[in-house]
């Protein structure tokens, strides 16, 4: 395996070819915020929160799906980037119906954390208040699309880890929504094994355990990473 060298925030780093900028940045301890990324799942670059500046390239690049290349000079935390990231988070809040005060994931939500880390004190865009459906047809779990940011973590966790592929994104633009099966009530989807991996993957309170109320959400994110690694390394105990 060949090794490439690049510079991230002024630090020189050598890393295996094929690594992403996000992985390289983590090696040097540069904290790039992410939302759709989850270790153990394939990266998709859906949320754009991890955008970075690369000298000589006029546009911002998502670190999670950009391969590190020889000689790159990367900046991960400029004022410009922080502005873009805060804008992205504001747009998430304006686009959906995110009411932290009455959300199951309050205090344990990656969207809320992203708002804090990007310094969002208020949303400068007008709230859209879309009409979105809630699905509580599954006996154990619920889906509140008001809180969904379309990161597709659940889609990937169900497909790549569980192999059930219950979830998909249907429609486009502002009409895009998470669907179960063939756009049917979650509880009627035979493919669902009720494993709960989508619950552990969800960054917000969109997919939750029924019976949990405000700020009671708990997740086991490490389980997903463990499952992905277990297959690669053939180690089956945790």
């Amino acid at each position, binding site marked *: 395996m060949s090794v490439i060298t690049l510079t991230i925030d002024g630090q020189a780093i050598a890393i295996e070819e094929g690594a992403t900028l996000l992985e390289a940045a983590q090696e040097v301890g540069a904290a790039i915020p992410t939302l759709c990324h989850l270790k153990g799942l394939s990266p998709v670059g859906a949320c754009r929160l991890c955008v970075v500046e690369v000298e000589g390239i006029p546009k911002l690049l998502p670190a999670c799906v950009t391969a590190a290349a020889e000689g790159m000079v990367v900046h991960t935390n400029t004022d410009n980037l922080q502005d873009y990231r805060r804008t992205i988070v504001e747009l998430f809040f304006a686009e959906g119906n995110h009411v932290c005060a009455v959300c199951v994931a309050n205090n344990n939500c990656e969207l809320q954390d992203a708002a804090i880390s990007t310094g969002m*004190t208020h949303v400068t865009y007008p709230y859209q208040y879309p009409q979105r459906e809630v699905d509580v047809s599954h006996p154990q779990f619920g889906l509140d699309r008001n809180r969904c940011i379309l990161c597709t973590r659940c889609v990937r966790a169900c497909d790549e880890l569980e192999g059930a592929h219950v979830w998909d994104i249907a429609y486009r633009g502002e009409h895009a929504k998470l669907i179960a099966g063939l756009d049917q009530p979650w509880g009627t989807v035979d493919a669902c094994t009720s494993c709960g991996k989508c619950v552990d993957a969800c960054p917000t309170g969109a997919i939750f355990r029924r019976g949990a109320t405000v700020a009671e959400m708990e997740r086991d994110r490490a389980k997903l990473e463990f499952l992905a690694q277990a297959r690669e390394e053939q180690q089956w105990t945790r």
Partner: protein
Amino acid sequence: MDAVTQKVRLATVWLGGCSGCHMSFLDLDEWLFEVAKFADIVFSPVASDIKDYPENVDVCLVEGAVANEENLELLLKVRSRTRILASFGDCAVTANVPAMRNMLGTAEPVLRRCYLELSDGVSHKLPDEPGIVPPLLDRVLPVHEVVSVDLFIPGCPPSAPRIQAAIEPLLHGNTPLMEGREMIKFG
């Protein structure tokens, strides 16, 4: 600043909210004596009997979203008479729970839902008392969508330590630093 007492003229107002932010303000407990040392409270639902919002206010904490015509009228008056207007709590900052009715569209379907469809009583009618019950706005709005806002203090409610950290600098003519989980976490 009051010309005679040299104190900051501080006000708090309560728009479309649950008063939880004002309860949290009272949770400042003994630190309220510090507030009294440096500020005159010139208008407040919890700390003053004055009924009309006065002129020349230095700092005003605005709790609640803009949900009805009375809220709107008071807010416009507050803005025109206040130097530093702070959105105080999640309802003021984001419109929060009061704005969940916006998903039903305008005010009319909300009133119909509450007073007709879900009513147990026999006298089914919509509230209509001109001059007494203020009509709802079609959309509940966060304060900054109506007037300019100088400071945002999120939280449902903002904790007493957060309120103290936000207003202590204001009492001494400084601007608070609003960043980090302790200061800007919503909910």
